[in-house]
């Protein structure tokens, strides 16, 4: 059950999608998962998060899964080479925000709005990643003491 908790929390965060005024929590979470789960399990979770996003935004199913998988790929490639999960997840979320805006079915908003979308997604990814790292580091320390 403990191993499922991060995925359940990720799905709930991506459920914020219709109500978050800027950026995309689902893409941010996908980038963070790319730094933590570099295996098929992480990719399946990311696809599911993308499908939830599509349903909640009344999109064509599958569009967001491809974008979320792109964010996961960028983050996992960079993590396997560089480490630094917080910085990597911020960069991956920002880069994956570009196709998200370009593929938006309702057109996209020029100038500040598109920058705001990317910046807000990247900031969310940074916050999620920092919180996740903080919690996992604390758990590891507790285990060492035992």
């Amino acid at each position, binding site marked *: 059950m403990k191993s499922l908790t991060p995925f359940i929390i990720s799905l709930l965060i991506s459920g914020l999608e219709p109500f978050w005024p800027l950026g995309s929590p689902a893409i941010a979470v996908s980038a963070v998962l790319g730094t933590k789960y570099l295996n098929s399990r992480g990719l399946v979770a990311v696809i599911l998060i993308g499908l939830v996003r599509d*349903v909640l935004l009344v999109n064509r199913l599958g569009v967001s899964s491809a974008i979320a998988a792109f964010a996961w790929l960028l983050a996992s*490639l960079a993590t396997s080479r560089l480490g630094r999960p917080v910085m990597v997840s911020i960069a991956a979320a920002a880069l994956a925000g570009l196709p998200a805006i370009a593929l938006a*079915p*309702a057109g996209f908003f020029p100038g500040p709005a598109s920058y705001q*979308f990317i910046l807000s997604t990247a900031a969310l990814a940074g916050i999620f990643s920092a919180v996740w790292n903080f919690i996992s580091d604390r758990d590891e320390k507790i285990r060492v003491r035992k």
Partner: protein
Amino acid sequence: MKPSSLIFRFLIAVFFSLTVMFFDSLSRLGWFRGSIETVFRPETRVLSFVAGGAGRLIAAGRYFSSGPARVADLERRLAAAENFAIASARNQEKLESSRILGWVDNRGFSLAPAKVLSFGWQLIIEIPPNLPDLPDTPDLIGKPVLSPDGALVGSIAKVGRWSARVKLLSDSGSQIPAAVLNPGKQKLAAGLLSGSFGAAITLEKVLTEVDLQPDLAVVTTGEDDQFPSDLLIGWIGKTGAKEASSVYQKAEVVPAVNPAELKTVFIIE
């Protein structure tokens, strides 16, 4: 893990996504949509409250960190306070009464109020759950959506179980027959309104012999059976340079509604 195996997994995910898109385009995945919507409805209610609170906190932070701009803004607000109070009270009254009673326009069509869920980069509205006269949700597609002031926002593009996406006028796929009115509310010219790249709205196919001046009202003509006539769309903005040899001219349209500021919209039944 090796980069090659990561890329291989990504390609499988893209293939899977394309397969899902194909089956969704054949409308075979309604059961999947339905089940996800059922699972997420109660959770998103809680999360929307959290997200709304976060949004208000960010707005308050921005306001207090603005410094001199805040003082100037305060002075401007004080100057406009009297008119604003009257206008907002009237708008609030209209909004509340239309939300409770269902607002019936003078021209005979009735309007169903719907709450705006989000305008991050798409306009998502909540479908009123127990509205007696609302048609079945699949019939909602293509229905016009108005702002509380009666201006046209767009039409419903896609419908879920409890939410729907609005196709805005600035969407590159939308084309609407429109008319330009002179200051005396007489029809001056007809044209075709279309969304263009960069969320702009353009009025095209207007004869060059017509003198388009900024601030003239643009309204629907009702020729396409989708939108009723005389709904306000916006006002003429910048006009393109006229060439002697061309038959038609173009003009930008300044929209009457900013979708980001909407809290409630009305669906024409």
